[in-house]
């Protein structure tokens, strides 16, 4: 009887070991293949204005002899930058001596340091919005024109350029 | 019978009786005729050769040094047969002789010394029959029947 039990125990042990081995074999069966993927995100800075053309026209232009704001118009400046510590500068390529153009920020959306108002009297570049860092944002831009010389040229174009650069 | 004729007849008779009696007693093949059959082989190799050592050659020593030669006649021979003398009591066994149809007599036992003794000497003849698979079989080609001649003569 002891012998029978011993034999049975031995066979059962073998069976269990075999079963475990088989299960392990089944579980461990697979095939794999690798691919190498190269990822890169370049720095990109995008800025646009909602209105490409703003008309600043006033009937008082020919009547008044004193300086003062005549008319204003508003556009929206929108940007995206994944760079760090960027700024948006602004410049007028065709500034006229006969008037002063004021730009002021409205409804700032985004975490930035800004100058809320500046004058475009010449072609020099002015920092406008600073501290852009890995973000997308927008703001309203209000243009005001103050006439200096009523006898000056009756109409002219300002080409205002916004540029994202390093701070 | 005239004396001349009687003398001639006596001389010839003497010579003849001497020769015949010498031939019958000086060399004897013991064992008669034999068949040797190659029955099996090795795949990828060749058929296995068979040997036969049941035949003996009995010979007597002479007054001069003698030898025994062997030759065969086997018209249309297809297979291989060789013989060598073993257990040679007097004389020296030559290397194994391949027996081929039409061969000249080849030495089998050489340097058989002069008598005495004047008793029978018996050597064993070991025959080896062989073939290759390429040589075919007897059922298709027939058997090789060798008439083998042994001669005892002066060396």
């Amino acid at each position, binding site marked *: 009887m002891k012998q029978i039990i011993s034999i049975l125990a031995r066979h059962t042990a073998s069976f269990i070991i075999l079963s475990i081995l088989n299960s392990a074999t089944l579980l461990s069966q697979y*095939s794999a*293949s690798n691919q190498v993927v190269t990822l890169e995100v370049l720095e990109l800075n995008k800025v646009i204005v909602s209105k490409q053309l703003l008309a600043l026209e006033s009937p008082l232009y020919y009547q008044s002899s004193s300086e003062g704001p005549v008319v204003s118009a508003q556009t929206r400046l929108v940007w995206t930058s994944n760079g760090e510590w960027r700024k948006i500068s602004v410049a007028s390529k065709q500034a006229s001596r006969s008037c002063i153009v004021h730009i002021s920020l409205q409804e700032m959306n985004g975490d930035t340091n800004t100058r809320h108002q500046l004058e475009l009297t010449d072609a020099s570049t002015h920092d406008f919005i600073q501290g852009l860092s890995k973000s997308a944002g927008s703001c309203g831009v209000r243009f005001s024109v103050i006439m200096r010389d009523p006898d000056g040229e009756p109409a002219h174009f300002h080409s205002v350029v916004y540029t994202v650069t390093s701070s | 019978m005239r*004396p*001349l004729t009687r*003398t*001639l007849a006596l*001389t010839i008779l003497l*010579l003849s009786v001497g020769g015949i009696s*010498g*031939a*019958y007693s*000086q*060399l004897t*093949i013991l064992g*008669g*005729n*034999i*068949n*040797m*059959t*190659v*029955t*099996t*082989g*090795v*795949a*990828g*190799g*060749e*058929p296995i050769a068979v040997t*036969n050592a049941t*035949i003996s050659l009995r*010979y007597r020593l*002479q007054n001069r040094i*003698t030898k025994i030669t062997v030759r065969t006649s086997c018209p249309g021979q297809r*297979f*291989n*047969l060789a013989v060598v003398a073993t257990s040679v009591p007097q004389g020296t066994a030559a290397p194994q002789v391949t027996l081929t149809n039409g061969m000249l007599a080849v030495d089998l036992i050489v340097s058989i010394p002069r008598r005495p003794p004047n008793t029978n000497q018996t050597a064993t003849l070991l025959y080896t*029959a062989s*073939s*290759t*698979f*390429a*040589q*075919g*079989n*007897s*059922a*298709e080609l027939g*058997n090789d*029947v*060798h*008439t*083998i*001649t*042994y*001669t*005892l*003569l*002066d060396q």
Partner: protein
Amino acid sequence: MKFHFLILVPIILLFCAQMQAQTVYATRTHRVTVIVSTITLVQVSSGVVNMTISGADAVAGQDLMTLTNQSTNLLWGINSSLKKITVNTSLAAPQFTLKLLAGSSTQGTAAPQVTLSTVPADFLLNIGRSSGNCILQYTAEALASQGTGTDPHTITFTVQNQ
């Protein structure tokens, strides 16, 4: 008497000459018959061949999986003319395909690759009166879509009249 002498002297001289030459004391003959039976032998260098198709034999994207085995040889010895060797398997309904080709045969003409079935197919032709060998080139084919399994074949090589 003188005449007798004249006759006898040459005979005796001849006898003496014969005695001086190589004397043949005796000549005996007997008959030896060599018989070569019809011998037909065929054997394999090993009685067991194990072939296992596994991942190493599969090509990704290909349903057909192939494995070859050239580990064994067939040897033969035949001393009769116009023979051939046929081959068949005992397995009536194999799950997978097993093919066989005689490679590098030293004699005869190898038949085209045979897909093994229970019907004997020519394996090696024109091998009468020769001894030789060839490589047993087994090719196993299985489709992945067939799943797994085992085919136990008993392959029989038979020498037959051609």
